[in-house]
């Protein structure tokens, strides 16, 4: 029987939740990296025991951690525990936490400033890694989405990182502004059908696509309408919260925007709103069923000021028609006095025959539905605020 391993990043460490295919009984390990913010953990599709983690702190900055044994032990790439930290010449081995923007004359020249909240120009300053996306094929190749928004890539297992400067430098970078959570690159999708295609999304710049492996980029925000910006249909400036893709139909994308749930049938070239009968079209997470490309999940959140579920009822909404027609999923979820949030990277889908859906809350609960959303149960109830949830389906 297959197993699942759920990787949970929280405000105060990482937790790993493991179960068999029934997903009823769970082993919980952690906290790993206790006291640190774990923005994201993700396993390599090519080697599930290879897991990368983004460990950050307002005091001590960014650290990248890696496990090669499924999360049992961890090390900073380039400085494995017990091994020399310098080469024979005395130079440090590995710079796994070094994220330096490209300011070279050749490729970094146009990368000067972005806009601050008040519209003034502000230089890029690295703050943290929001999202880690391992390559589909190579365990040593991994991408990192960072704040201030940029995309980095490592081809040596996270030891060293280099910016893909074509994103910031494609032309609109100077117009990007931060969302309320900072100017973060939070979504990275590596296209399983076309290895040269990468999608990313930034709050609050929008979605972008590369068709040449990350060298050149273009905004893909046509059809988005954001009434809170000066030009509601501008090429960039949209506060995209998350984007999801189904592997079987790589041109089909779903987006949870600050307001509006959107879909694209042409790889982001155009978008249509599919909020339909949702009680509010604000939210952070969105994800797609493992076996049904038109079955999608969101968690509507009351906004702009509140950021908790409507009426104190935690409800996942499912559409089986690719949007517009939505049904609330409530069985096993609290239906009174619930005022938690579900952050943008805190939903995940497993690949078991009976598709499992997972999400974590700022109240420290991680919920699982082993039957595609019909029934829910908490795996854990009292973790620190959950920042991210990923799941690995293991043989």
């Amino acid at each position, binding site marked *: 029987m297959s197993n699942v391993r759920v990787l949970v990043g929280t405000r105060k460490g990482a937790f790993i939740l493991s179960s068999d295919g029934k997903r009823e009984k769970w082993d919980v390990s952690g906290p790993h990296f206790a006291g640190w913010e774990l923005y994201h953990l993700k396993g390599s599709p090519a080697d599930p025991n290879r897991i990368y983690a983004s460990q950050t702190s307002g*005091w*001590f900055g960014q*650290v990248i951690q890696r496990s090669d044994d499924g999360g049992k032990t961890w090390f900073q790439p380039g*400085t494995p525990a017990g091994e020399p930290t*310098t080469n024979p010449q005395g130079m440090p081995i590995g*710079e796994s936490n070094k*994220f330096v923007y490209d300011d070279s004359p050749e490729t970094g020249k146009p990368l000067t400033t972005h806009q601050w909240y008040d519209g003034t120009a502000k230089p890029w300053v690295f703050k943290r890694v929001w999202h880690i996306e391992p390559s589909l094929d190579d365990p040593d190749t991994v991408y990192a989405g960072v704040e201030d928004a940029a995309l980095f890539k490592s081809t040596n297992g996270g030891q060293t990182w280099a910016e893909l400067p074509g994103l910031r430098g494609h032309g609109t970078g100077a117009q990007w502004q931060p969302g309320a959570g900072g100017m973060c690159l939070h979504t990275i999708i590596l296209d399983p059908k076309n290895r040269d295609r990468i999608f990313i999304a930034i709050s609050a710049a929008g979605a972008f696509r590369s068709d040449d492996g990350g060298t050149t980029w273009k905004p893909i925000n046509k059809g988005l309408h954001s009434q809170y910006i000066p030009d509601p249909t501008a090429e960039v400036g949209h506060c995209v919260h998350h984007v999801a893709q189904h592997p079987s139909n790589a041109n089909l994308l779903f987006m949870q925007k600050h307001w509006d749930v959107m879909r694209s049938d042409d790889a982001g070239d155009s978008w249509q709103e599919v909020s339909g009968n949702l009680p509010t079209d604000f939210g952070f997470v969105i994800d797609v069923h493992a076996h049904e490309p038109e079955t999608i999940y969101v968690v509507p959140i009351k906004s702009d000021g509140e950021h908790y579920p409507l009426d104190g009822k935690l409800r996942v909404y499912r559409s089986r028609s690719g949007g517009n027609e939505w049904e609330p999923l409530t069985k096993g979820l609290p239906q009174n006095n619930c005022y938690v949030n579900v952050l943008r990277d805190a939903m995940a889908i497993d690949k078991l025959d009976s598709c499992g859906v997972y999400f974590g809350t700022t109240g420290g609960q991680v919920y699982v539905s082993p039957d595609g959303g019909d029934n829910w149960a908490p795996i854990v109830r009292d973790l620190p605020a959950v920042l991210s949830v990923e799941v690995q389906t293991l043989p």
Partner: protein
Amino acid sequence: MIRIVMPAHLRTLAAVSGEVTLEIEGEVTRQAILDGLEKRYPMLRGTIREHVSRERRPFLRFFACGEDVTHKDPNAPLPPEIASGAEPFYVIGAIAGG
């Protein structure tokens, strides 16, 4: 021999417990201590000072012999008690968050 006391999180990253000791050649300054610390424990690079600017991270402070030397010239000599190892050099996380 220089003695250095670091916050618990940095000790965990460096896989050390208690004080760290270093031998520093030449004048003992804050810069020399941090350079030596980062050379011996490269995993600490970027956690005390920014990688490129080499500026102190905002929520960290430095103390020597009971004195806050955070805003003093990083290349100024530290007291002889630090240089001799009689007193440790402290890297301290600012109290913030309440």
